[in-house]
């Protein structure tokens, strides 16, 4: 019974194809995983809404609760390192607090969004075994819910900080660029982790470790100047570090947005997104066997 060599899968038209005699193949253009954009979006949005509903139980203020984590951590870091490191921030504790807070909000978003996406495909295995659904809606819905929370909770606060420091609308508007880059990186990483989790159920432990490495290697609570020159190239591999740097440059430096940082973070975002999409598309054909 057990044979090893599988055959190549073939593309299969579904839904409205007319089977009797004249079989019409559906174009794959304008569709995501065989679903129309509209249907894909409907599904993703209802999943995202459900996630937010469960999280906040009808209280819109709950969204601001998500700020408590970076705020509290900023407080702790400031209490411990604030005095020691303030010399790197023009001898200003306030500058340290702001730099720390901006970095932590980005990291909090990243670790929450990717951490919740990781089990999203496996967690909906029973649903996927009953109804034909596009797999990508599950990580995307988690990203959408977290991005909504970020846009409503964190982003206005960052905008205020930016406006206060730069007195420039250009800076406030250009906050959108690193935000988009951040969402793209989170999306790409979520595609990778949610698809790998189907095959490797011990992934959460390993991913926790990776998040810790990203956390420590992003200069959030310590000044980037402390990193030895020999280690710096390794830090450049951390996708979040460049995005944090971009956020800080726009929000805290008081200078006009630095184009090279904008381009770098957007390029990082796009490449992570592309890699994630490719890995997800490659692995998804085997999902159903293990769900």
């Amino acid at each position, binding site marked *: 019974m057990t*044979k090893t060599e599988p055959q190549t899968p073939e593309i*299969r038209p579904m839904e409205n194809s007319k089977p009797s005699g004249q079989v019409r193949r559906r174009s794959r253009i304008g569709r995501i995983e065989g679903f129309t954009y509209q249907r894909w979006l409907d599904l993703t949005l209802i999943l995202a809404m459900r996630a937010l509903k469960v999280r906040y139980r009808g209280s819109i203020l709950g969204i601001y609760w998500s700020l408590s984590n970076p705020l509290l951590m900023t407080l702790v870091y400031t209490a411990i390192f604030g005095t020691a490191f303030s010399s790197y921030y023009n001898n200003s504790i306030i500058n340290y607090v702001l730099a720390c807070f901006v970095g932590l909000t980005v990291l909090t978003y990243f670790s929450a969004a990717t951490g919740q996406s990781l089990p999203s495909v496996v967690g909906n295995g029973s649903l996927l075994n009953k109804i034909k659904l596009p797999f990508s809606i599950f990580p995307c819905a988690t990203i959408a819910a977290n991005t909504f929370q970020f846009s409503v909770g964190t982003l206005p606060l960052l905008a205020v900080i930016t406006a206060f420091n730069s007195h420039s609308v250009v800076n406030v508007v250009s906050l959108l660029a690193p935000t988009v880059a951040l969402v793209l990186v989170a999306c790409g990483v979520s595609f990778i982790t949610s698809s790998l989790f189907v095959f490797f159920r011990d992934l959460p432990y390993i991913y926790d470790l990776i998040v810790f490495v990203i956390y420590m290697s992003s200069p959030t609570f310590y000044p980037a100047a402390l990193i030895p020159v020999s280690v710096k190239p390794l830090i450049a591999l951390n996708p979040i570090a460049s995005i944090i740097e971009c956020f800080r440059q726009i929000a805290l430096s008081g200078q006009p947005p630095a184009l090279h940082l904008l381009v770098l973070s957007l390029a990082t975002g796009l490449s992570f997104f592309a890699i994630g999409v490719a890995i997800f598309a490659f692995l998804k054909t085997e999902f159903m066997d293990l769900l």
Partner: protein
Amino acid sequence: MTAVLLQSVSLWRRTQEELSYDLKRTILHVLERRYRRPPRRRVLHNISLQIERGEKVGIIGPNGSGKSTLLKLICGILTPTKGHVYVSGRIAPLIELGAGFDADITVADNIVYYGVMLGFSKKEMQGRIDPILDFAELAEYRNEPLKTLSSGMVTRLGFAIATEQRPEILILDEVLSVGDESFKIKCMQRIQDFWDHSSTIIVVSHDMTFIAAQCSRAVWLEHGEIVYAGPASQVTQLYLESVYGDQTTPLGNSHSLSSDAEVLGTSG
């Protein structure tokens, strides 16, 4: 008009063995050069089947013969490794009723959410909450979280949502036996209504009397292959004879019957 067409469909699936579930072990096995590609098992082999609109087809066979897998292929949940599946019309899959709900949100939200998953629009579903709750007799639970419902109630809800609108193709996987007696009658009435109104129905069941009485045709699966396909009464009879080892008509000598049976399988 054909509703469902399967052209020499084969399906290979990965066996769910422990090795592939663990990254640590996979890496260690690769390092020790003990890694091998996860084995695949042939679940369905060369299935060809054409179901016309309005036909009622029963699928029979022993446990593990691939009956439910075949239904999942028709629903589009699984993709065939080889061959093609064509489906025309909206499918109501009544598979594992009650799975796939979210225990933490309210019953009403679950109805909308589940309906959108099934392919209805959100607006449409919001208008259907009340009729669905009425049918499932769960109106007083409308704003309660789903976890307050008993498993039988959840099954009722699943049935009510999936069958709220008459589907063009109804897929039944042994769901006729769920719920308490009074609800069972209600389910049967609704399914009978679909039965009478020219819906295409594909049903997996171990109840041969039911298949013989209610279906026009039956497909007998064994080890993922079609053994016989033809008029329901004949196929069920043959199947029962093979199971009980009836001495008068053992399977090997029943060529006369099999030639009578209209063979559904269309090659290619």
